[in-house]
């Protein structure tokens, strides 16, 4: 076949497809601000984690710097992972997906979403400055001081208004599964946060005691009900919502079962809300409450299995894309870890197992399985997916994305395994009456390994920032096109070339 040699310069600059030249009908301003903030916070909170891991190996590493003290960095890390990184990533994903699912051109107010993103960044920065300087409410997962709590809730409620108004002006009447969660989950969390932080009782405002019930054990019950619902009513439902979007969208396959998604939605609402007390199973709190927590923790497997079957059913016949499509690979890896964390959590909520593993690093491993293995890996995939869509160009480098995937997956798997083993070591030692301090030398090697695996995760997050930055600031579509032309010319050189 003759090769055309009379290609004009105009033609070479023309896009490969007509679709790529069309401007996006979605402004996605709000989404961009939320998820770009999120990837920066991811590295910040990862670095907090690395500081902690280093202090486990050499407690004097940052000796003398009060704001790098373990006890202050640890709440900053935990709150940062949940509120800065994951929440901003989730709102970014929500602002991206919701207009596409309900058939509107953008959110009700994109500008409001942008303002909220900036306000949220300020909120977390203020909160974390407070924690690092010793201004904390001293309630685990609810450490932010009262003014920051209020700021957080105001922004959160504005986001809810934005979401509900967008749903109200939808052009597609029936709402998709993801949208159920997009409506319900932020509302749940707003109520959970307000009640859990006892915001009607500011107390000392700048430090403890503030935002806590007067009765200590009631406060503990409320504290852990609230803390677990950060996962149960916000982080997990949003993981479901996003997976319900990404998997059918990327595989171009309808969701396997509507009924199963109903079970996962209502199951989550009923069973997740009551599991909080399993964090204090051995404490002097009412036994009936512990029973409810244990039973709920197992009943939770019903919506989990419904979700799992639904996604596996959707993936049927599509597994080739798991290997070729990177966002899908991130999503399904997260999906696998999510399944695992629920099985593990159900066992941890049983008294005999809890007696062995509670207070040990096993619990830390479990928390990372959820927040790192499931939510963070999902978030990385979601952001890689959305950036390509929003900027309408392929990511700068596929191999960087591959590095990102393998570093976080291997890093996390190692991290999780090491801490699980360390947890068993602690649990079995304590059960023999060996005091905590005598177990510390045995944990040293685990702590070193944890630091190394943790560093891999930090690098993975930095790679993502680099990759996304280069995607934004260089015309990767044009670069890809020229590469394709070069390959084409190498395979079939122009006649006489």
């Amino acid at each position: 076949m003759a090769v055309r040699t009379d290609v004009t310069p105009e033609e070479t600059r023309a896009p490969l497809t007509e679709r790529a030249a069309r401007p996006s009908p979605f402004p996605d301003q709000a989404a961009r601000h939320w998820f770009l903030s999120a990837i920066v916070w991811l590295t910040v909170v990862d670095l907090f984690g690395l500081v902690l891991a280093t202090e486990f190996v050499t407690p004097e590493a940052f000796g003398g710097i009060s704001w790098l003290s373990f006890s202050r960095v640890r709440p900053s890390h935990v709150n940062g992972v949940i509120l800065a990184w994951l929440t901003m990533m989730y709102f970014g994903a929500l602002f991206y997906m919701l207009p596409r699912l309900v058939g509107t051109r953008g959110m009700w107010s994109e500008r409001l979403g942008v303002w909220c993103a900036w306000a949220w960044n300020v909120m977390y920065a203020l909160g974390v400055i407070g924690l690092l300087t010793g201004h904390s409410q001293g309630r685990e997962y609810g450490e932010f001081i009262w003014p920051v709590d209020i700021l957080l809730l105001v922004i959160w409620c504005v986001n809810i208004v934005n979401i509900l108004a967008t749903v109200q002006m939808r052009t597609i009447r029936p709402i998709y599964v993801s949208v159920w969660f997009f409506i319900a989950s932020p509302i749940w969390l707003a109520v959970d946060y307000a009640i859990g932080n006892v915001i009607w009782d500011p107390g000392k405002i700048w430090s403890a005691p503030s935002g806590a019930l007067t009765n200590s054990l009631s406060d503990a019950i409320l504290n852990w009900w609230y803390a677990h619902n950060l996962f149960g009513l916000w982080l997990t439902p949003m993981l479901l919502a996003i997976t319900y979007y990404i998997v059918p969208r990327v595989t171009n396959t309808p969701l396997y079962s509507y009924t199963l998604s109903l079970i996962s939605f209502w199951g989550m609402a009923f069973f997740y809300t009551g599991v909080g007390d399993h964090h204090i199973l051995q404490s002097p709190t009412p036994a009936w409450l512990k029973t409810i927590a244990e039973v709920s923790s197992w009943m939770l497997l019903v919506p989990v299995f419904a979700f799992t079957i639904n996604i596996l059913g959707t993936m049927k016949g599509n597994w080739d894309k798991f290997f070729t499509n990177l966002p899908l690979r991130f999503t399904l890896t997260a999906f696998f870890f999510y399944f695992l964390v629920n099985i593990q959590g159900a066992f941890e909520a049983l008294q005999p197992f809890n007696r062995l593993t509670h207070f040990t690093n096993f619990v830390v491993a479990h928390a990372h399985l959820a927040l790192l293995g499931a939510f963070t890996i999902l978030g990385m995939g979601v952001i890689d997916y959305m950036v390509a869509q929003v900027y309408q160009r392929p990511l700068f480098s596929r191999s960087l994305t591959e590095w990102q995937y393998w570093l976080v997956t291997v890093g996390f798997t190692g991290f999780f395994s090491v801490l699980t083993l360390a947890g068993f070591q602690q649990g079995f030692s304590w059960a023999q009456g060996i005091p905590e301090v005598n177990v510390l030398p045995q944990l040293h090697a685990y702590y070193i390994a944890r630091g190394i695996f943790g560093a891999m995760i930090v690098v993975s997050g930095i790679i993502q920032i680099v990759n996304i930055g280069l995607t934004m600031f260089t015309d990767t579509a044009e670069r890809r096109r020229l590469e394709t032309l070069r390959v084409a010319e190498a395979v079939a050189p122009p006649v006489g070339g």
Partner: protein
Amino acid sequence: MTENEHERDDPRVPRGWARHPPERMLITPLIAGVGGLIAFFVVVFVVVWLPIHTFDPAASADWTPLTKDAVKGRNLFASNGCYVCHSGYSRPQDVRYALYFLYPKVSQPGDFFGSDQTPNLLGTERTGPDLSQESGWHPDDWQRAHFYDPRYMDPLSLMPSMKSLFSDSQVEQLVTYVETRSGKSGLLRYAGQLYAKHIVLVNQGFPEPYRGFQGAHKPALEGNDKILHPPKGQLEEAPNLSQIDRGYWLSGNPLPVTQQNLLRGKEVFLDRCVGCHGVDGDGKGPGASFLSPTPADFTDKDDACCGGDTGPGDFYYRILRGWPGTAMENFGDRLSVDDIWRVVLFLKTIPNDTLDKNVVPEPSDYIKWQPSKELLAWVKSTQKLENNVSFSKAEFADPYIQEAMRIFPGLAPGDSFLVNDGKTRLSLRDAASGIKTIYDDLLNRAWADARERDGKLPSVAQKAIPPTVPGQQ
């Protein structure tokens, strides 16, 4: 033709209920939002509202309020995130009837009574030990040095140093909180610790330890021998021996002096003891300047470590159970019996420079201990072995006497003599009444502060319930 329409045409499917599930279970925004909230609040009613409004246990018999300073310390504890590594309740499986009494009792719901217990500090991780029963196990000077740099007191510790976090007055508040947080049983233990500190300082001519973090900037304290006037005819070491069960006074080593035993002893010493006793064993470790009396010096060849009145058994007992009133801790749960004896063997080689680097202690370095004539005479004349308190412990139900016996296990009920200042009387009865005075003072101040705080308080009858000595019977 869609699947649905296909079903309608199918004669096998009865008409009427063949509508596809999505049509019957269609979720609208209202159902997702309001329905979701209803589901949420139904569960919240059961797991939050109900327990908060029905679960209000009365104060337990062991409960005490906190003083003003202790509350400030508690707030510092919360605001600086100490709870991320230290839990605040002990579980049934934590309570071991071992020699180290960090977990002497199971936390009861009533232990958490009172408005000074907010926010909750139950915690979820034990990177460090649980602190609910910490009061009184260590004296204040140990706590200050440990806050300044935990490695000073325990070289294995992973705890961050608090030197840049707290001012001198804040550290005192934290110490007050830690020392008075464990209810009446902890308060009694702390009263015993304070009384023992008083006796030890008076007996050895030492001043009060530095407050706050001052110990880090000041020279180590020194004892003033001139103010000491030991009574004539009384063994000079007698007040010190009164803190050691007399069954150990003349005890020899059960382990042979071998190179292996000495080497293991050196290893344990370097792991655990150098923060106070120093890498040279001269009692000048980095934490020493916080402590009063200062840690023991093991380098003096002539008296083979602390004189001919102090035998290996005494060293063994002090490592095993600690020395209340000094910073010497209780290692009974952390070291095996054999390892403690190996440390004792090794201590007796330190004057021969066995702590130098790369030196393997040899059995020939071991300095054999000979009881002094005075000690033998003292044991024969005054303090007979058969009067050992542990033989007659069951007779005493009074908790203050029990605590006095814990602090002075070497005293028999009938013993009474003056300590080395020549003025202060030492006997179980005197100790018990001293401990009771301190205990009552601590408790009264806590109640007075609680009344001022306008917190909810149990009836005065609760206050009158005497303390217990859990885990000691």
